[in-house]
């Protein structure tokens, strides 16, 4: 048993060297119910941040609230685009629209309704951010600690040049 676990670990570690580079070709939904491919939502030469969240996830909301306060400055300086990718299932999906309006967020909102994109990227925990340059994945991070948005911004700045 231990052997198997150790083996899985080895496989997992050896995998680090070949981690995913491009965003998979998967369809997500707009708030109006339109199905669009995720690639079509990324700008070719700018940095896009996919922030996976859900209406019931407190650290996700804290992260997006914190970024929301400084988003204007970020955009001005780096023209980064943040997409808040909701992983809410149909239990809480109807809460997305009123919530983002009630919060006054300016992000583009997309819905990963049955978590296909989340699964394809092998994301197990949210909040999870994926930083993209064009459609190439340059950075990933899971979890949120208050203030950690500053570190994320350093990454965005680094890749915006």
């Amino acid at each position, binding site marked *: 048993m231990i052997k198997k*676990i150790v083996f899985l670990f080895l496989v997992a570690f050896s995998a680090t060297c070949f*981690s995913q580079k491009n965003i998979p*070709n998967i369809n997500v939904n707009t708030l*109006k119910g339109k199905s669009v491919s995720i690639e079509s939502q990324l700008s070719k030469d700018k940095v896009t941040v996919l922030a996976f969240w859900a209406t*019931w996830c407190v650290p996700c909301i804290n992260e997006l609230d914190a970024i929301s306060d400084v988003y204007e400055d970020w955009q001005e300086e780096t023209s980064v685009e943040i997409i808040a990718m909701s992983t809410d299932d149909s239990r809480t999906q109807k809460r997305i629209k009123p919530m983002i309006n*009630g919060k006054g967020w300016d992000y583009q909102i997309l819905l990963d309704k049955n978590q296909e994109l989340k699964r394809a990227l092998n994301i197990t925990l949210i909040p999870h951010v994926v930083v993209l340059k064009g459609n190439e994945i340059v950075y990933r991070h899971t979890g949120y600690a208050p203030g950690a948005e500053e570190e994320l911004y350093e990454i965005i700045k680094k890749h915006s040049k």
Partner: protein
Amino acid sequence: MKKSILFIILLISFVSFSQEDHDISYGFESNSQYYLDDSKTGDFLESNRFRSNNFFKIDYSYKNFYAGLQVESYEPKAMLNYSPNLDKTNLGLYYLGYNTGKIEVTLGHFYEQFGSGLILRSWEDRQLGINNALLGGRFKYSPKEYLHFTSFYANQRKGFAISKGNIIGFNSDFDISSALNFETSSLSAGFSYVGRSQEKTETNFDYNNRTDLFSSRIEFSKDHFYSNLEYVAKGKDAVIIQNQIKNAKKGAAVLANFGYAKKGLGINATFRRMENMNLFSDREANGNIYNESVVNYLPALTKQHDYLLTNIYVYQAQPQVSFQDPSLIKSGEIGGQIDVFYKLKKGTFLGGKYGAKVALNFSSWHGLKADYDFASFDYEMDFFGFGQKYFSDLSFEVRKKWSKQWNTIFYYVNQSYNKRYIEETFGEINANIFVSEATYKMGKGKSLRFEAQLLATNDDRKNWAGGTVEYNATSKLAVYINDIYNYGNDDVDQQIHYYNVGGSYTVGAHRFALNYGRQRGGLICIGGVCRNVPESTGISANITMSF
């Protein structure tokens, strides 16, 4: 098992010699626990004190092709109260597909959802031990940007085996406004069919091998308003009470939603009625406690609370027919919920310097009103009638930022929980819950968070108090301690502290967590689906890694 390992190694070596077009993604998750004896809540009486659930998933794509698999390992045994069908190490999922954007073909395991999931949803939730992926063939076709078709034929995964029943599905989604170039409004419609075929048992009741379900839905939005409506009809199927077929009845569901949203204000109202809407890939799976063989998704439409004490009395949707005794008969549920979100502007009296955010939710759920005949396990339905009250929940939340350093949340919940009907045991609970939370940011990812909670009730186990302190030393390292204390329990021996201490370390997309403590027994609910866990004490370790 050996074959799958070989396959993984082959894939990795293949990709490491490859060019740009190849892409590979991995995920690894491990949840382990070492169960300890507890002088307060009792010794650990099961076999294997150490238990571990492990998942390794790999996805590979080359141009339009994709393939993947998931190996699962429950060694030496799955954690407490997971299905006995999740045992040892085996291949959990495997799939192969081709996707051009217009056409997609999948062979092997796949996840699918039609509409809101009322007639079909397959998904995975590892914390709950749910994986009801479909195993078979699926074909998707999108002739136009605004027109999408899906069809499949499959069995359903059950542990490492598959269901006896077959499932066939067809779905269409039509974005009418894009097709007709509506400028200011949006209109779309969908239609789905799901059939579950399983040889029927010899009975006097009239139903077919195949149970048919139809769903039609429409969605409309204009300016700040939006609404959608879904209706589901379910054909006659066996009504199973305590593992015996007692009748055959039809089922139905109505789901309606209206909302208004503009910057700074959002309102949403949902109504749902469900009658005999359970659907399992094997009829005999009816009522299983592991959420196995579930074909459709019928979550409780209530607010999903975030705090320990707000999650003691959690409603579970009641779609099923149940005849326990003449005073405890159920055939479905009816009710709804309303959400309001409002932002208090910066610089106003209540909003202060940074503004504040307010959220309100109210939900109420009842049984269906019907003439019940206990002797023949039958009923006559009053379609929009409200029966016995099952649950209500009123919650109010204020989030306020006071300065660059201080953030607070105040949360109040009033709950009414009809335990007799929801859990089919005894009692009714009315509770008031108060939570306040404060976060102090010290910069560079360093922060402190405090939480104080109180649950006040004269029912069931009476009053509870709780608290949490969490310290983020850096944006990577966090430690916490929490405790909930049932100080109001009439039985002094049951006045128990459920304490936990732990920490986590995050590097990029990888997270390692360690925890020691005593867990309260009861329902653990995620996404409106609940799993019953026993009280336990122990040390747990969680690893999640994504590549």
